[in-house]
Protein backbone atom coordinates (compact mmCIF):
# COMPACT_ATOMS: atom_id res chain seq x y z
CA UNK A 1 0.00 0.00 0.00
CA UNK A 2 2.70 2.44 1.00
CA UNK A 3 4.55 1.44 -2.14
CA UNK A 4 1.50 2.39 -4.19
CA UNK A 5 1.22 5.76 -2.46
CA UNK A 6 4.87 6.49 -2.93
CA UNK A 7 4.62 5.49 -6.64
CA UNK A 8 1.68 7.82 -7.15
CA UNK A 9 3.20 10.73 -5.27
CA UNK A 10 6.73 10.40 -6.56
CA UNK A 11 6.18 9.31 -10.18
CA UNK A 12 2.66 10.09 -11.29
CA UNK A 13 1.59 13.33 -9.65
CA UNK A 14 4.65 15.55 -10.32
CA UNK A 15 4.61 14.82 -14.06
CA UNK A 16 0.83 14.94 -14.21
CA UNK A 17 0.87 18.39 -12.60
CA UNK A 18 2.98 19.63 -15.48
CA UNK A 19 0.54 18.02 -17.90
CA UNK A 20 -2.34 19.57 -16.00
CA UNK A 21 -1.14 23.08 -16.77
CA UNK A 22 -0.56 22.14 -20.40
CA UNK A 23 -4.17 20.97 -20.54
CA UNK A 24 -5.41 24.16 -18.91
CA UNK A 25 -3.45 26.23 -21.44
CA UNK A 26 -5.26 24.37 -24.21
CA UNK A 27 -8.72 24.35 -22.63
CA UNK A 28 -9.10 27.96 -21.51
CA UNK A 29 -8.26 29.68 -24.80
CA UNK A 30 -10.16 27.16 -26.89
CA UNK A 31 -13.24 27.37 -24.64
CA UNK A 32 -13.26 31.18 -24.87
CA UNK A 33 -12.49 31.24 -28.58
CA UNK A 34 -15.04 28.49 -29.21
CA UNK A 35 -17.74 30.39 -27.39
CA UNK A 36 -16.88 33.55 -29.30
CA UNK A 37 -17.03 31.69 -32.64
CA UNK A 38 -20.29 30.09 -31.52
CA UNK A 39 -21.98 33.38 -30.65
CA UNK A 40 -20.91 35.03 -33.90
CA UNK A 41 -21.78 32.03 -36.06
CA UNK A 42 -25.05 31.42 -34.22
CA UNK A 43 -26.08 35.05 -34.73
CA UNK A 44 -25.05 34.99 -38.40
CA UNK A 45 -27.01 31.78 -38.96
CA UNK A 46 -30.14 33.57 -37.79
CA UNK A 47 -29.70 37.14 -39.02
CA UNK A 48 -27.17 37.21 -41.85
CA UNK A 49 -28.02 37.42 -45.55
CA UNK A 50 -28.64 34.09 -47.27
CA UNK A 51 -25.12 33.34 -48.63
CA UNK A 52 -23.45 34.07 -45.27
CA UNK A 53 -26.07 31.98 -43.51
CA UNK A 54 -25.41 29.09 -45.88
CA UNK A 55 -21.67 29.42 -45.43
CA UNK A 56 -22.08 29.22 -41.65
CA UNK A 57 -24.42 26.24 -41.96
CA UNK A 58 -21.75 24.58 -44.10
CA UNK A 59 -19.08 25.25 -41.46
CA UNK A 60 -21.27 23.71 -38.76
CA UNK A 61 -22.08 20.71 -40.93
CA UNK A 62 -18.39 20.02 -41.57
CA UNK A 63 -17.22 20.39 -37.98
CA UNK A 64 -20.11 18.51 -36.43
CA UNK A 65 -20.04 15.88 -39.13
CA UNK A 66 -16.42 14.76 -38.91
CA UNK A 67 -14.55 13.22 -35.99
CA UNK A 68 -12.46 15.63 -33.98
CA UNK A 69 -9.48 13.28 -34.28
CA UNK A 70 -9.64 13.60 -38.05
CA UNK A 71 -9.88 17.37 -37.77
CA UNK A 72 -6.80 17.48 -35.52
CA UNK A 73 -4.90 15.18 -37.87
CA UNK A 74 -5.84 17.48 -40.70
CA UNK A 75 -4.61 20.65 -39.00
CA UNK A 76 -1.37 19.09 -37.78
CA UNK A 77 -0.41 16.41 -40.28
CA UNK A 78 -2.21 17.38 -43.50
CA UNK A 79 -2.27 21.16 -43.65
CA UNK A 80 1.55 21.49 -43.95
CA UNK A 81 1.36 19.41 -47.17
CA UNK A 82 -1.08 21.75 -48.85
CA UNK A 83 0.04 25.01 -50.36
CA UNK A 84 -1.93 28.09 -51.27
CA UNK A 85 -0.13 29.87 -54.06
CA UNK A 86 3.21 28.52 -52.89
CA UNK A 87 2.40 29.45 -49.30
CA UNK A 88 2.34 26.74 -46.70
CA UNK A 89 0.63 26.93 -43.35
CA UNK A 90 2.57 25.18 -40.63
CA UNK A 91 1.32 25.59 -37.10
CA UNK A 92 2.68 24.34 -33.81
CA UNK A 93 0.90 21.42 -32.21
CA UNK A 94 -0.54 23.71 -29.52
CA UNK A 95 -1.95 26.15 -32.09
CA UNK A 96 -3.43 23.25 -34.05
CA UNK A 97 -5.07 21.87 -30.93
CA UNK A 98 -6.51 25.21 -29.84
CA UNK A 99 -7.73 25.99 -33.34
CA UNK A 100 -9.17 22.51 -33.78
CA UNK A 101 -10.96 22.52 -30.42
CA UNK A 102 -12.27 26.06 -30.87
CA UNK A 103 -13.61 25.43 -34.37
CA UNK A 104 -15.27 22.19 -33.38
CA UNK A 105 -16.63 23.56 -30.14
CA UNK A 106 -17.79 26.76 -31.89
CA UNK A 107 -19.89 24.68 -34.27
CA UNK A 108 -21.72 23.10 -31.33
CA UNK A 109 -22.04 26.39 -29.43
CA UNK A 110 -23.59 27.98 -32.50
CA UNK A 111 -26.34 25.37 -32.42
CA UNK A 112 -27.24 26.30 -28.84
CA UNK A 113 -26.98 30.04 -29.52
CA UNK A 114 -29.07 29.72 -32.66
CA UNK A 115 -31.80 27.92 -30.71
CA UNK A 116 -31.64 30.60 -28.02
CA UNK A 117 -31.94 33.40 -30.57
CA UNK A 118 -34.93 31.79 -32.25
CA UNK A 119 -36.65 31.45 -28.88
CA UNK A 120 -36.85 35.23 -28.33
CA UNK A 121 -40.30 36.44 -29.18
CA UNK A 122 -40.41 38.77 -32.18
CA UNK A 123 -42.55 41.20 -30.17
CA UNK A 124 -39.52 42.30 -28.18
CA UNK A 125 -37.53 42.94 -31.35
CA UNK A 126 -40.44 44.95 -32.68
CA UNK A 127 -40.59 46.96 -29.46
CA UNK A 128 -36.87 47.66 -29.65
CA UNK A 129 -37.21 48.85 -33.24
CA UNK A 130 -40.25 50.94 -32.33
CA UNK A 131 -38.02 52.80 -29.88
CA UNK A 132 -35.64 53.68 -32.68
CA UNK A 133 -32.99 51.03 -32.05
CA UNK A 134 -31.05 49.82 -35.05
CA UNK A 135 -31.28 46.08 -35.81
CA UNK A 136 -27.71 45.70 -34.57
CA UNK A 137 -28.48 47.46 -31.27
CA UNK A 138 -31.62 45.44 -30.72
CA UNK A 139 -29.82 42.17 -31.32
CA UNK A 140 -26.91 43.20 -29.11
CA UNK A 141 -28.86 44.71 -26.21
CA UNK A 142 -32.15 42.84 -26.28
CA UNK A 143 -31.87 39.53 -28.09
CA UNK A 144 -28.35 38.28 -27.35
CA UNK A 145 -28.43 38.75 -23.56
CA UNK A 146 -31.62 36.69 -23.44
CA UNK A 147 -30.53 34.15 -26.02
CA UNK A 148 -27.27 33.68 -24.12
CA UNK A 149 -29.19 32.91 -20.94
CA UNK A 150 -31.44 30.50 -22.81
CA UNK A 151 -28.47 28.70 -24.32
CA UNK A 152 -26.12 28.93 -21.36
CA UNK A 153 -26.76 25.45 -19.96
CA UNK A 154 -26.17 23.95 -23.41
CA UNK A 155 -22.97 25.92 -23.78
CA UNK A 156 -21.83 24.75 -20.32
CA UNK A 157 -22.24 21.18 -21.46
CA UNK A 158 -20.11 21.95 -24.47
CA UNK A 159 -17.34 23.37 -22.27
CA UNK A 160 -17.43 20.22 -20.15
CA UNK A 161 -17.11 18.12 -23.31
CA UNK A 162 -14.23 20.32 -24.42
CA UNK A 163 -12.34 19.62 -21.18
CA UNK A 164 -12.63 15.93 -21.88
CA UNK A 165 -11.85 16.01 -25.56
CA UNK A 166 -8.78 18.12 -24.86
CA UNK A 167 -7.24 14.71 -24.13
CA UNK A 168 -7.14 14.18 -27.90
CA UNK A 169 -4.34 16.74 -28.09
CA UNK A 170 -2.05 13.90 -27.01
CA UNK A 171 -2.43 12.31 -30.43
CA UNK A 172 -0.79 15.29 -32.08
CA UNK A 173 2.24 14.99 -29.82
CA UNK A 174 1.19 17.33 -27.04
CA UNK A 175 2.16 16.20 -23.57
CA UNK A 176 -0.94 17.24 -21.73
CA UNK A 177 -2.43 15.09 -18.96
CA UNK A 178 -3.35 12.11 -21.13
CA UNK A 179 -0.07 12.22 -23.02
CA UNK A 180 1.92 12.37 -19.80
CA UNK A 181 -0.17 9.56 -18.32
CA UNK A 182 0.51 7.38 -21.33
CA UNK A 183 4.24 8.09 -20.98
CA UNK A 184 4.25 7.10 -17.31
CA UNK A 185 2.24 3.95 -18.02
CA UNK A 186 4.58 2.94 -20.81
CA UNK A 187 7.67 3.49 -18.68
CA UNK A 188 6.43 1.79 -15.53
CA UNK A 189 3.89 -0.74 -16.86
CA UNK A 190 1.56 0.41 -14.08
CA UNK A 191 -1.38 1.21 -16.31
CA UNK A 192 -4.14 0.77 -13.74
CA UNK A 193 -2.79 3.16 -11.13
CA UNK A 194 -1.64 5.71 -13.67
CA UNK A 195 -4.85 5.97 -15.65
CA UNK A 196 -6.97 5.97 -12.49
CA UNK A 197 -5.07 9.04 -11.33
CA UNK A 198 -5.35 10.64 -14.77
CA UNK A 199 -9.10 10.04 -14.62
CA UNK A 200 -9.28 11.66 -11.20
CA UNK A 201 -7.50 14.74 -12.53
CA UNK A 202 -10.10 15.12 -15.30
CA UNK A 203 -12.88 14.56 -12.81
CA UNK A 204 -11.49 17.30 -10.59
CA UNK A 205 -11.12 19.68 -13.52
CA UNK A 206 -14.65 19.01 -14.72
CA UNK A 207 -16.06 19.44 -11.20
CA UNK A 208 -14.23 22.72 -10.84
CA UNK A 209 -15.51 23.96 -14.19
CA UNK A 210 -19.05 22.83 -13.37
CA UNK A 211 -18.97 24.73 -10.10
CA UNK A 212 -17.68 27.85 -11.84
CA UNK A 213 -20.29 27.65 -14.60
CA UNK A 214 -23.03 27.01 -12.06
CA UNK A 215 -21.93 30.10 -10.17
CA UNK A 216 -22.02 32.16 -13.38
CA UNK A 217 -25.46 30.84 -14.22
CA UNK A 218 -26.72 31.80 -10.76
CA UNK A 219 -25.26 35.27 -11.13
CA UNK A 220 -27.01 35.79 -14.45
CA UNK A 221 -30.29 34.48 -13.12
CA UNK A 222 -33.31 36.71 -13.58
CA UNK A 223 -36.53 36.17 -11.61
CA UNK A 224 -39.16 34.46 -13.70
CA UNK A 225 -36.91 34.23 -16.70
CA UNK A 226 -37.22 30.77 -18.14
CA UNK A 227 -33.97 28.95 -18.61
CA UNK A 228 -33.14 26.99 -21.68
CA UNK A 229 -34.26 23.42 -21.87
CA UNK A 230 -31.94 20.70 -22.92
Amino acid at each position, binding site marked *: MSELISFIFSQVIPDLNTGFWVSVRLIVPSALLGMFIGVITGALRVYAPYPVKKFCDFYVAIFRGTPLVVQLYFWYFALPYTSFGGFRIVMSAETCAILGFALCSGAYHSEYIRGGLLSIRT*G*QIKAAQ*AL*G*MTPFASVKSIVLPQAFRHSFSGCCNEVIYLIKYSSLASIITINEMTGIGRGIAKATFRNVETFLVVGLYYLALVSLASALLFYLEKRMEIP*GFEKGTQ
Partner: protein
Amino acid sequence: MQTDQTIDKNKPRVLEARKIVKELGGSRVLDQVDLILDRGDIKVLIGPSGSGKSTLLQCLNLLHIPESGELYLDSRPINFRKKSELYLLRQKVGMIFQEFNLFDHLTARQNVAIALRKVKKQSKKMAEQRAELELSRVGLSDKVDLYPAQLSGGQKQRVSIARALAMDPEVLLLDEPTSALDPELISEVLVVIRDLAKEGMTMLMATHQISFSASLAHEFVFMEAGRITEQGAPNVLLAEGAGSRTLDFCSKISEMTGAQA
Protein backbone atom coordinates in the same frame (compact mmCIF):
# COMPACT_ATOMS: atom_id res chain seq x y z
CA MET B 1 -71.15 59.98 -43.68
CA GLN B 2 -69.15 63.12 -43.28
CA THR B 3 -65.39 62.96 -43.36
CA ASP B 4 -64.82 66.55 -42.38
CA GLN B 5 -61.24 67.02 -41.29
CA THR B 6 -61.47 70.12 -39.18
CA ILE B 7 -58.38 72.09 -39.99
CA ASP B 8 -57.35 74.24 -37.10
CA LYS B 9 -54.69 76.67 -38.16
CA ASN B 10 -53.48 77.02 -34.57
CA LYS B 11 -52.64 73.37 -34.12
CA PRO B 12 -49.43 72.35 -35.84
CA ARG B 13 -49.62 69.18 -37.83
CA VAL B 14 -47.66 66.36 -36.23
CA LEU B 15 -48.15 63.31 -38.38
CA GLU B 16 -49.79 62.95 -41.73
CA ALA B 17 -50.25 59.88 -43.86
CA ARG B 18 -51.30 60.14 -47.48
CA LYS B 19 -52.54 57.32 -49.67
CA ILE B 20 -50.79 54.62 -47.66
CA VAL B 21 -50.90 51.23 -49.37
CA LYS B 22 -49.67 48.11 -47.62
CA GLU B 23 -49.78 44.57 -48.89
CA LEU B 24 -49.17 41.56 -46.70
CA GLY B 25 -49.03 38.04 -48.06
CA GLY B 26 -50.32 39.15 -51.44
CA SER B 27 -53.47 40.84 -50.18
CA ARG B 28 -53.97 44.57 -49.84
CA VAL B 29 -54.33 45.28 -46.13
CA LEU B 30 -54.31 49.07 -46.43
CA ASP B 31 -55.81 50.71 -49.46
CA GLN B 32 -54.98 54.37 -49.95
CA VAL B 33 -55.38 55.40 -46.34
CA ASP B 34 -55.15 59.09 -45.41
CA LEU B 35 -54.85 60.21 -41.82
CA ILE B 36 -53.91 63.44 -40.12
CA LEU B 37 -52.88 64.00 -36.52
CA ASP B 38 -52.53 67.57 -35.27
CA ARG B 39 -50.88 68.42 -31.99
CA GLY B 40 -53.07 67.30 -29.10
CA ASP B 41 -55.40 65.26 -31.30
CA ILE B 42 -56.81 62.09 -29.85
CA LYS B 43 -58.18 59.82 -32.50
CA VAL B 44 -59.50 56.35 -31.99
CA LEU B 45 -59.35 53.62 -34.62
CA ILE B 46 -62.23 51.22 -34.52
CA GLY B 47 -63.39 48.51 -36.81
CA PRO B 48 -63.67 44.77 -37.13
CA SER B 49 -60.62 42.51 -36.72
CA GLY B 50 -58.59 42.33 -39.88
CA SER B 51 -59.73 45.75 -41.04
CA GLY B 52 -56.14 47.00 -41.00
CA LYS B 53 -56.03 49.00 -37.74
CA SER B 54 -52.87 47.31 -36.46
CA THR B 55 -51.20 47.45 -39.85
CA LEU B 56 -51.98 51.15 -40.15
CA LEU B 57 -50.44 51.85 -36.74
CA GLN B 58 -47.35 49.86 -37.64
CA CYS B 59 -47.06 51.71 -40.94
CA LEU B 60 -47.23 55.04 -39.13
CA ASN B 61 -44.02 54.33 -37.26
CA LEU B 62 -42.63 52.30 -40.13
CA LEU B 63 -42.46 48.94 -38.42
CA HIS B 64 -44.16 48.03 -41.66
CA ILE B 65 -42.84 49.83 -44.70
CA PRO B 66 -45.76 50.82 -46.92
CA GLU B 67 -45.70 49.81 -50.59
CA SER B 68 -46.63 53.33 -51.53
CA GLY B 69 -47.91 56.53 -50.03
CA GLU B 70 -46.38 59.42 -48.17
CA LEU B 71 -45.69 60.12 -44.55
CA TYR B 72 -45.01 63.53 -43.03
CA LEU B 73 -43.67 64.24 -39.58
CA ASP B 74 -43.96 67.88 -38.56
CA SER B 75 -44.88 68.56 -42.21
CA ARG B 76 -41.55 67.16 -43.36
CA PRO B 77 -41.69 64.22 -45.78
CA ILE B 78 -40.13 61.00 -44.55
CA ASN B 79 -38.12 58.87 -46.92
CA PHE B 80 -39.02 55.27 -45.99
CA ARG B 81 -36.04 53.84 -47.80
CA LYS B 82 -33.54 55.80 -45.77
CA LYS B 83 -32.56 53.95 -42.61
CA SER B 84 -31.57 57.06 -40.67
CA GLU B 85 -34.98 58.67 -41.27
CA LEU B 86 -36.67 55.47 -40.26
CA TYR B 87 -34.88 55.39 -36.90
CA LEU B 88 -35.53 59.07 -36.31
CA LEU B 89 -39.23 58.79 -37.05
CA ARG B 90 -39.59 55.83 -34.71
CA GLN B 91 -38.03 57.80 -31.88
CA LYS B 92 -40.65 60.50 -32.33
CA VAL B 93 -43.58 58.19 -32.82
CA GLY B 94 -44.07 56.01 -29.75
CA MET B 95 -45.77 52.67 -29.95
CA ILE B 96 -47.70 50.71 -27.34
CA PHE B 97 -48.39 47.08 -28.13
CA GLN B 98 -51.24 44.84 -27.13
CA GLU B 99 -48.79 42.28 -25.73
CA PHE B 100 -46.65 44.91 -23.91
CA ASN B 101 -43.43 43.46 -25.37
CA LEU B 102 -41.29 44.34 -22.38
CA PHE B 103 -37.70 43.17 -22.42
CA ASP B 104 -37.79 40.10 -20.18
CA HIS B 105 -34.19 40.32 -19.01
CA LEU B 106 -34.39 43.90 -17.77
CA THR B 107 -35.99 45.48 -14.71
CA ALA B 108 -38.76 48.02 -15.14
CA ARG B 109 -36.18 50.79 -14.72
CA GLN B 110 -33.82 49.25 -17.29
CA ASN B 111 -36.70 48.63 -19.70
CA VAL B 112 -37.40 52.35 -19.74
CA ALA B 113 -33.75 53.42 -19.67
CA ILE B 114 -32.32 51.16 -22.36
CA ALA B 115 -33.50 53.11 -25.39
CA LEU B 116 -32.35 56.37 -23.79
CA ARG B 117 -28.91 54.85 -23.46
CA LYS B 118 -28.66 52.98 -26.74
CA VAL B 119 -30.58 55.38 -28.99
CA LYS B 120 -30.21 58.77 -27.34
CA LYS B 121 -26.75 57.87 -26.00
CA GLN B 122 -27.52 59.23 -22.56
CA SER B 123 -25.36 58.30 -19.58
CA LYS B 124 -26.57 55.42 -17.44
CA LYS B 125 -27.28 57.74 -14.53
CA MET B 126 -29.25 60.23 -16.58
CA ALA B 127 -31.24 57.53 -18.34
CA GLU B 128 -32.13 55.78 -15.09
CA GLN B 129 -33.19 59.01 -13.44
CA ARG B 130 -35.48 59.73 -16.35
CA ALA B 131 -36.77 56.15 -16.19
CA GLU B 132 -37.66 56.54 -12.54
CA LEU B 133 -39.47 59.78 -13.30
CA GLU B 134 -41.50 58.19 -16.09
CA LEU B 135 -42.30 55.16 -13.94
CA SER B 136 -43.56 57.40 -11.16
CA ARG B 137 -45.75 59.17 -13.74
CA VAL B 138 -47.52 55.87 -14.39
CA GLY B 139 -47.69 55.08 -10.67
CA LEU B 140 -44.96 52.46 -10.50
CA SER B 141 -42.34 54.13 -8.30
CA ASP B 142 -42.29 51.11 -6.04
CA LYS B 143 -41.79 48.59 -8.86
CA VAL B 144 -38.68 49.99 -10.57
CA ASP B 145 -36.48 47.07 -9.59
CA LEU B 146 -38.88 44.31 -10.56
CA TYR B 147 -38.57 42.20 -13.68
CA PRO B 148 -41.46 41.79 -16.14
CA ALA B 149 -42.23 38.30 -14.82
CA GLN B 150 -42.86 39.86 -11.41
CA LEU B 151 -45.41 42.39 -12.69
CA SER B 152 -49.11 42.06 -13.44
CA GLY B 153 -50.40 42.65 -16.95
CA GLY B 154 -51.61 46.14 -16.10
CA GLN B 155 -48.28 47.03 -14.54
CA LYS B 156 -46.43 45.68 -17.57
CA GLN B 157 -48.51 47.84 -19.88
CA ARG B 158 -47.84 50.87 -17.72
CA VAL B 159 -44.09 50.17 -17.88
CA SER B 160 -44.37 49.98 -21.64
CA ILE B 161 -46.15 53.35 -21.67
CA ALA B 162 -43.40 54.82 -19.48
CA ARG B 163 -40.83 53.34 -21.87
CA ALA B 164 -42.46 55.08 -24.83
CA LEU B 165 -42.87 58.39 -22.97
CA ALA B 166 -39.22 58.51 -21.96
CA MET B 167 -38.31 59.01 -25.62
CA ASP B 168 -40.32 62.27 -25.66
CA PRO B 169 -42.48 61.16 -28.56
CA GLU B 170 -44.56 63.64 -30.48
CA VAL B 171 -47.25 61.06 -31.07
CA LEU B 172 -48.21 57.92 -29.22
CA LEU B 173 -49.71 55.04 -31.17
CA LEU B 174 -51.58 52.53 -29.04
CA ASP B 175 -52.49 49.16 -30.51
CA GLU B 176 -55.32 47.74 -28.40
CA PRO B 177 -53.46 48.51 -25.16
CA THR B 178 -55.99 46.78 -22.94
CA SER B 179 -57.01 43.80 -25.05
CA ALA B 180 -54.57 41.38 -23.44
CA LEU B 181 -55.48 42.39 -19.89
CA ASP B 182 -57.74 40.76 -17.34
CA PRO B 183 -60.88 42.86 -16.96
CA GLU B 184 -59.99 44.09 -13.49
CA LEU B 185 -56.61 45.38 -14.69
CA ILE B 186 -57.94 47.42 -17.59
CA SER B 187 -58.87 50.51 -15.60
CA GLU B 188 -55.36 51.18 -14.25
CA VAL B 189 -54.11 51.43 -17.83
CA LEU B 190 -57.06 53.55 -18.93
CA VAL B 191 -56.35 55.97 -16.06
CA VAL B 192 -52.82 56.46 -17.38
CA ILE B 193 -54.11 57.03 -20.91
CA ARG B 194 -56.63 59.54 -19.61
CA ASP B 195 -53.87 61.42 -17.78
CA LEU B 196 -51.85 61.57 -20.99
CA ALA B 197 -54.86 62.96 -22.79
CA LYS B 198 -55.20 65.66 -20.13
CA GLU B 199 -51.55 66.58 -20.63
CA GLY B 200 -52.25 67.10 -24.30
CA MET B 201 -50.40 64.07 -25.73
CA THR B 202 -51.22 63.45 -29.37
CA MET B 203 -52.57 59.91 -29.62
CA LEU B 204 -53.94 57.43 -32.09
CA MET B 205 -55.40 54.37 -30.42
CA ALA B 206 -56.93 51.21 -31.76
CA THR B 207 -59.32 49.85 -29.17
CA HIS B 208 -62.59 48.13 -28.46
CA GLN B 209 -63.13 50.18 -25.29
CA ILE B 210 -65.89 52.20 -26.94
CA SER B 211 -67.34 54.07 -23.99
CA PHE B 212 -63.94 55.00 -22.61
CA SER B 213 -62.66 56.24 -25.93
CA ALA B 214 -65.88 58.10 -26.71
CA SER B 215 -65.30 60.12 -23.57
CA LEU B 216 -61.74 60.91 -24.61
CA ALA B 217 -61.48 61.04 -28.37
CA HIS B 218 -61.85 64.07 -30.55
CA GLU B 219 -62.52 61.80 -33.45
CA PHE B 220 -63.47 58.23 -34.24
CA VAL B 221 -61.89 56.72 -37.31
CA PHE B 222 -63.77 53.68 -38.57
CA MET B 223 -61.86 51.21 -40.68
CA GLU B 224 -63.17 48.39 -42.75
CA ALA B 225 -61.38 46.20 -45.31
CA GLY B 226 -58.27 48.34 -45.34
CA ARG B 227 -60.00 51.68 -45.83
CA ILE B 228 -61.18 54.46 -43.59
CA THR B 229 -64.89 54.50 -44.23
CA GLU B 230 -66.14 56.91 -41.58
CA GLN B 231 -64.51 59.63 -39.58
CA GLY B 232 -65.96 62.16 -37.19
CA ALA B 233 -66.62 63.27 -33.64
CA PRO B 234 -67.84 60.37 -31.50
CA ASN B 235 -71.00 62.16 -30.41
CA VAL B 236 -71.95 62.71 -34.05
CA LEU B 237 -71.16 59.19 -35.24
CA LEU B 238 -72.73 57.56 -32.21
CA ALA B 239 -75.78 59.83 -32.04
CA GLU B 240 -79.03 57.93 -31.93
CA GLY B 241 -80.35 57.48 -35.41
CA ALA B 242 -77.06 58.52 -36.97
CA GLY B 243 -77.32 55.44 -39.10
CA SER B 244 -73.54 55.22 -39.23
CA ARG B 245 -71.64 52.00 -39.68
CA THR B 246 -69.68 53.07 -36.58
CA LEU B 247 -72.86 53.17 -34.48
CA ASP B 248 -73.90 49.77 -35.79
CA PHE B 249 -70.49 48.27 -34.98
CA CYS B 250 -70.22 49.90 -31.55
CA SER B 251 -73.67 48.84 -30.46
CA LYS B 252 -72.83 45.26 -31.38
CA ILE B 253 -69.69 45.40 -29.23
CA SER B 254 -71.63 46.95 -26.36
CA GLU B 255 -74.28 44.26 -26.56
CA MET B 256 -71.55 41.72 -26.11
CA THR B 257 -69.73 43.44 -23.30
CA GLY B 258 -72.79 45.02 -21.71
CA ALA B 259 -71.04 48.36 -21.73
CA GLN B 260 -72.71 51.55 -22.78
CA ALA B 261 -71.60 52.89 -26.13
